[in-house]
């Protein structure tokens, strides 16, 4: 076993070279953004030496850009920087609610949205909200950049789609129009500082008559990965997002869920609560658009 190393490359090419060199030497390299998961793992069950590659010195992982058509959020931007940004909050209030729910003030000052995604916990709060917003992951690798829809990025419990030598640069989201908004809700038995029993993100677009023309629903903590629920979106599109449509969307979430029973909740409870969260988040997103 070798020794720990720490490197903080300043460009994408340098980062890729560090990852390639480590692989060539048969050494393990691990990416560091906020460190709120990584440092805990290093102190716990996974103490083996490795090269820690700090991604916070790259322009691409620290960039936050609110373009006319698109928003780009660098993978290493911390949760607090996100929800302190009023213009970003106006675009994706639900996504920022999710970022604001993660851990304590201290954790939010370090934990990054890219890290929350790459850590790939079934209960990661930003993931269903990113799915609802149709986020696209921008990945750097030896063969250049590639893009992965966020719902395909997490492939299993603590497993993401990054191949060896690749890393997440940031996330691209469509800039919402005036008639698009989102919401995220999770259930925890306390009011703060807990891990989701279930979570649901809903993004809606309504036309001028108040009819839903587009919808995306993401659910978390009720399956090995956060899931996009197309049937929930179908139940909302073409409706005024009334109680019946929301109930149907909630039922679709229950049907899509394949939760486990653990100390946070049972299978039955999680399947039921995810429907409630979908209904409530859908109503919040609708009301945000309608301004009520």
């Amino acid at each position, binding site marked *: 076993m070798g020794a720990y190393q720490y490197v903080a490359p300043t460009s994408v090419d340098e980062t890729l070279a560090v990852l390639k060199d480590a692989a060539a030497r048969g050494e393990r390299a691990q990416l560091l953004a906020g460190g*709120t998961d990584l440092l805990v793992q290093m102190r716990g069950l996974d103490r083996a030496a490795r090269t820690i590659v*700090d991604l916070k010195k790259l322009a691409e992982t620290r960039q936050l850009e609110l373009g006319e058509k698109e928003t780009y959020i660098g993978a290493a931007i911390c949760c*607090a920087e996100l929800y302190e940004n009023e213009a970003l909050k106006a675009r994706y209030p639900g996504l920022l609610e999710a970022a604001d729910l993660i*851990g304590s003030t201290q954790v939010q000052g370090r934990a990054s949205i890219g890290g929350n995604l790459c850590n790939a916990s079934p209960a990661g709060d930003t993931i269903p909200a990113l799915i609802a917003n149709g986020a696209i992951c921008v990945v750097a690798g030896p063969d250049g950049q590639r893009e992965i829809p966020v719902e395909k990025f997490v492939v299993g419990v603590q497993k993401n789609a990054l191949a060896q030598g690749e890393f997440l640069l940031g996330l691209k989201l469509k800039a919402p129009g005036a008639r698009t908004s989102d919401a995220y809700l999770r259930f925890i038995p306390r009011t703060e500082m807990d891990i989701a029993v279930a979570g649901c993100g809903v993004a809606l677009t309504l036309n001028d008559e108040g009819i839903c023309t587009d919808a995306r629903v993401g659910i978390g903590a009720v399956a090995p990965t956060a899931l996009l629920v197309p049937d929930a979106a179908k139940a909302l599109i073409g409706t005024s997002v009334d109680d019946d449509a929301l109930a149907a969307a909630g039922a679709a979430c229950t049907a899509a869920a394949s939760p486990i029973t653990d100390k946070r909740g049972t299978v039955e409870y999680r399947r039921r609560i995810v429907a409630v969260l979908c209904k409530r988040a859908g109503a919040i997103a609708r009301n945000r658009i309608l301004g009520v």
Partner: protein
Amino acid sequence: MSKLHVETSINGEAVEFLCEPQQSLLEVLREELDRTGTKEGCGTGDCGACSVLMDGRLVCSCLVLAAETSGHEITTIEGIAQGDGLHPIQQAYLDNAALQCGICTPGLVVATKALLDKNPNPDEETIRYWIAGNLCRCTGYDKIVRAIQDAAGRLAHPA
């Protein structure tokens, strides 16, 4: 493996140190730099006893690698008071009996500083959410919340 050479700023003072790549800021503060005001509770970011400011932002020093502080500004509990007197936040904690065993207190004082720098007049709910990451097993928090409200008043209207 040679140690890493880190140049940073702690409480306004330029500081250089050598550290292992995996060492946390907390370990370096306490064990290399002899700044033991910052306490270790859990070591995993749950309790907030090790809270410090990094570029003005509240963080757990156990969740920051010492190597990551290169080029950044760190404020620890030792940097809160100016000169020989206590900071109004520290005085408010004493006057409100907001500490018993004292292990959580440095982290809470730093957290209070971060809150009041950002929001000089927080309501009780804001205070309680802000300090949710600072565990205290003695006081039951009410006296801490009162101390923070008192400190906000003292800073707004210095005697």
